[in-house]
């Protein structure tokens, strides 16, 4: 295996920060290229007029998912050294819900708000300020919120582990369902015009 490079000692912390910057630039580039820095375009997702958010996000997930599977299969990447975000059932469902309301209300998400700001959109600034306020409030009220925050930990849990369906089959299902979903999205968008 030769990857993940950092985990196998290919370079140190300082280099990793430069890499973070480069990866961030590429991230921001593609987000803006897709129009994700524009709240009006993003909001279209929730009014079923412009499903770009879904198309971009899900294409990204499927691309990376396939890449991970095949690189691991080829022995190039060692998945056991890749950090998988742990699952916390209640906080993630509750947080997802609150986040979703905020998303449609604000029209941007934490990553895209950066793109909005750097392309001159003042609503991006307002959103970022709101996020700082929200995080600060959460931190200050942490003593009260702690029980919810730390409830229902499930550790590292992936769909194959949960469902008992093997990893390759899950990959195939996600890919096929994804393409079908994209067809559906195109149909929905055309219906609206």
């Amino acid at each position, binding site marked *: 295996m030769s990857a993940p490079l950092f985990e196998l000692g290919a370079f140190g912390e300082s280099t990793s920060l430069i890499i973070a910057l480069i990866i961030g630039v590429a991230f921001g580039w593609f987000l803006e290229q897709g129009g994700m820095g524009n709240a009006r375009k993003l909001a279209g997702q929730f009014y079923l007029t412009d499903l770009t958010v879904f198309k971009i996000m899900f294409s990204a997930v499927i691309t990376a998912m396939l890449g991970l599977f095949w*690189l691991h299969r080829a022995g190039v990447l060692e998945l056991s050294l890749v950090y*998988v975000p742990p699952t916390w059932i209640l906080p993630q469902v509750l947080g997802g819900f609150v986040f979703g309301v905020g998303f449609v209300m604000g029209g941007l998400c934490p990553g895209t708000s950066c793109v909005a700001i750097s392309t001159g959109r003042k609503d991006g600034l307002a959103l970022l300020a709101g*996020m700082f306020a929200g995080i600060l409030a959460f931190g200050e009220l942490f003593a009260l919120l702690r029980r919810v925050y730390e409830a229902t930990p499930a550790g590292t849990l992936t769909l194959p582990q949960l469902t008992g369906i093997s990893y390759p089959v899950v990959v195939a299902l996600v890919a096929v369902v994804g393409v079908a979903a994209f067809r559906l999205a195109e149909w929905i968008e055309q219906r609206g015009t």
Partner: protein
Amino acid sequence: MSAPRAPRPYMNPYLAGVGLGLVLLAAFVVMGRGLGASGAYASVVAAGVDRVAPTHAQANGFFSHYLAGEAPLKDWLVFEILGVFLGGFLSALVAGRLRWTVEHGPAMSDRGRLLYAFGGGALMGVGAVLARRCTSGQALTGGALLSVGSWLFIVTAFAAGYLAAPLFRKQWR
């Protein structure tokens, strides 16, 4: 006299998505981790609180987590987010999409939109911290890794978005 350059059309969303996916994949291959955004903001908030009230920050169970380690701002996500700012700027510069404005529909006022943006941001700040990450972190990173919690997050976030959408429609009218 030359006309102002018309903004170029956006990239095909599937291509942009594949591009993003490859960036995400690069992060996995090079760093062994995915992307994120809200974590960077939490670091900044924690650093700020630490500056203003250090004993309070260290004693707080939430902020102290982000203050562990060398310096909260010398953090991978913070550098990544700086890159996102830069990348977005460069892309818009090249495509002629830089505009100092507030995005909203014709019937909405600037101030109203800004208030909504602030409120939405506050909710997202709380939601993202609760869920440990946001769309970049959970949806993209956790999604590609097939993490159950991440998929739960995406599904509930989108569901909530559709449910709450009628409330905020007037921004885009």
